[in-house]
């Protein structure tokens, strides 16, 4: 592919290149985008030693705060520091406006969809969404049928993954409606960034995100069961070996609520209590970071030791609220994803503001045949997996891997979808900051904003920008060599 260098290429930008992919900092002509000017000038004016010093102090701050995540599949419970890039990603106010409206529309529609499917099922009768996609989804919970959830809110917390295509449009890659994580990295990156570059931060006029924990707490409180005006809210974690444990402790502390594990809770007569040194105390709202399958060994997986026996019955009895509700995974199933535009049209009577990525359903014979013939150009994803696990990236996969996936697709078409290999946008990153040869290079990024749904829908301006730090890589997951950077939404 043709690549061009940006204008005024100097020593700092010696590795920078532009090609078809959308560049967050440079226009295709090689001129800098207005909103990045001040940032680039500042970084270029800093002496190397000063830059290294700030990078070092930022790294140290992450290490000593113990901001780490756990990588599965390696040695049990391996803790790593979340890699962090110092150049913020900048989103203009106008760009953000579209994102925000699009997310509110999408989440509102998905929430209505869940309420409908678990009750009357009008959308299924209309044929806008085929029944078999819903009923064959492993995350569809028959147990939720006919259950009235507080305020009809199923998805209290969402972290939607967006990417920016070559034409500059933001599109939705995944809706994470079960237990989305990463918000603590958003908050702590911001804190470190403000401390490391206070002057430029002030000059930019970045919209604040620090109110996220209070907003989350307010949402959770608004979902308390009726007749509990002073609800006790807790955060339920799978425990210290979970990859997001740091985040659970962080949020619990920021909200001032108890962090509980399954073994801290007991149910009696359909009421949930926690064991305290002063005896049992009633629990009203559970912000749970444990998957559906593990949450109640009596109702779901019997071998789970992370859950609370009897919790589901207490929930059905209306004595406790769970956020998110059970069964929300139905709406972020990767096959159902293809129908989200139809869902938005059905409930909102509007065209989607944020588009989907083109998706081939393997249950459709024609689409399957096309996909199998073009596996080397496509990305194949297992519908129930997340976090970059269970994926085939066609162009980078070996022949054997592709054949393996082809067999798996034939054996269980409902379990897979395929999407074109997308070149998503690149943002400038500071590379090799530990050695002497620091330079600014482009790396692929996505964006995960966080949406809260309580008495109203709130989108916190910003989100987690994840970076594929390996050159040329498109995988941004922290478990697979990804990092993060602060996201600045401007107040223009």
């Amino acid at each position, binding site marked *: 592919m043709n690549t061009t260098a940006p204008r005024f290429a100097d020593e700092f930008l010696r590795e920078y290149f532009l090609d078809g992919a959308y560049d967050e900092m440079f226009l295709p002509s090689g001129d800098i985008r207005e909103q990045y000017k001040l940032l680039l000038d500042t970084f270029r004016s800093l002496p190397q030693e000063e830059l290294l010093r700030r990078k070092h102090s930022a790294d140290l701050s992450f290490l*000593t*705060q*113990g901001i780490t995540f756990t990588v599965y599949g390696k040695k049990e419970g391996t803790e790593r520091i979340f890699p962090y890039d110092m150049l913020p990603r900048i989103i203009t106010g106008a760009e953000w406006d579209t994102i925000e409206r699009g997310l509110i529309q999408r989440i509102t529609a998905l929430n209505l969809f869940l309420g409908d499917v678990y009750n009357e099922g009008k959308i299924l009768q209309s044929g806008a969404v085929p029944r078999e996609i819903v009923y064959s989804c492993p995350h569809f919970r028959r147990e939720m049928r006919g259950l009235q959830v507080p305020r009809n809110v199923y998805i209290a917390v969402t972290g939607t993954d967006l990417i920016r295509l070559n034409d500059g449009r933001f599109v939705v890659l995944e809706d994470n409606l079960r237990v989305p994580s990463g918000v603590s990295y958003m908050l702590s990156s911001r804190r470190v960034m403000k401390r490391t570059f206070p002057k430029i931060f002030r000059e930019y006029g970045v919209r604040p995100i620090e109110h996220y924990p209070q907003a989350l707490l307010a949402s959770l409180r608004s979902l308390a069961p009726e007749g509990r005006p002073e609800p006790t809210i807790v955060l339920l974690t799978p*425990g*210290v070996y979970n990859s997001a*444990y*740091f985040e659970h*402790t*962080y949020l*619990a*502390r920021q909200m001032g609520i*108890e*962090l*509980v*594990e399954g*073994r*801290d809770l*007991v149910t*009696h007569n359909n009421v949930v209590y*926690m*064991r*305290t*040194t*002063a*005896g*049992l105390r009633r629990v009203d709202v559970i912000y749970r970071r444990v998957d559906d399958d593990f949450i109640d060994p009596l109702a779901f997986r019997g071998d789970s030791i992370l859950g609370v026996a009897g919790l589901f019955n207490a929930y059905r009895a209306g004595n406790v609220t769970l956020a998110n509700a059970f069964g929300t995974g139905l709406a972020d199933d990767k096959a159902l994803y293809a129908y989200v535009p139809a869902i938005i049209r059905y409930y909102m009577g509007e065209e989607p503001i944020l588009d989907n990525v083109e998706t081939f359903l393997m249950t459709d014979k024609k689409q399957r045949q096309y996909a199998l013939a073009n596996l080397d150009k496509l990305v194949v994803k297992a519908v129930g997996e997340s976090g970059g696990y269970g994926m085939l990236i066609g162009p980078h996969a070996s022949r054997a891997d592709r054949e393996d996936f082809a067999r798996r697709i034939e054996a269980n078409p409902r379990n897979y979808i395929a999407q074109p290999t997308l070149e998503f946008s690149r943002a400038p990153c500071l590379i090799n900051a530990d050695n002497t040869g620091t330079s600014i290079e482009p790396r692929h990024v996505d964006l995960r904003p966080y949406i809260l749904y309580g008495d109203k829908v709130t989108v916190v301006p910003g989100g987690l920008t994840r970076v594929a730090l390996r050159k040329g890589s498109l995988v941004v997951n922290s478990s697979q060599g990804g990092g993060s950077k602060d996201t600045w939404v401007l107040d223009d």
Partner: protein
Amino acid sequence: MLSRVADSLYWMSRYLERAEHTVRMLDVNFAMTLDPSSTSEDVRWRRLLLALGSSDEDWNGDSHALVQKLTHDDAHDASIKSCIAAARENARQVREEISSEQWLQLNRMYHLVTENPQSARATPPDEFLAVVLDGLHLFQGVTDTTMSHGEGWHFIQVGRSIERASSIASLLTVYEMGVSGLGQSEPVGSHHFLEWIGLLRSCTAFEAYCNVYTADLTESQILEFLLLNKDFPHSVRYSIDRLRDALLALQQESGRLSPQELLRVAGRLQSALSFVEISDVLQGGVGEYLAMVLHESRRIHSLIYRDYIHYSVQTALAM
């Protein structure tokens, strides 16, 4: 406070106290080997192992290997490294209950003892021990100045006091068995002199002892000081006093109705230590007295668990 959280804070504190005790024991033993003495190195290392609750069969004549084992060995549960790692693991599970400053300090110590085993081995043991001891003291200070002195803090005090009282009592027991005639009132002979200074130093008590009794070392006075002194932080009585204070504070904080048996047992042990004369202890047998202290401490531990941590749902609902 969640019962699980109380459990973690209690054990975090006990592990750190245990690490501190081990550090001091090793440090003192090192210092003692510098002076020629009639007590063989063999006896000293065996005594140290017994006092730390290990078996003296772990001693194979290689002091370097033993020190490695007691400092850096992860496979050995009582090594300094294992204790600090276990304390950190407990703290990690209650990360939201302790202050950021406490966590930072504990994390720093953890990285100090776990990372880079090569350079850790290259550091002379006495320097390593000094750094760890400083770190542990710093953690105590940070805990006292940055954490709310509420329920969690009281559980930390309970853990520390029980651990300290038990380790001093165990150390005295080993000395009592090893050196016949603990409790004699004439000044100790020069060949045992170093051993007794070692005992006092193992409890940071040498200077404090001299302030009370002058530098005349007699075995009965040493025993009296380490067992019954009311002001010295590393005496058994002082630790049990603090333990009872913390238990009373906990009863008020948690508004719990019925830790009656717990408070009775702790109160009885406290008054035993407050009102006993050293001559009575000597007459009744030092070993028996120390065994009683250890037994009652273990009982207090079980009662704390019964009342605050592992109570049954039926009892709790009945209240």
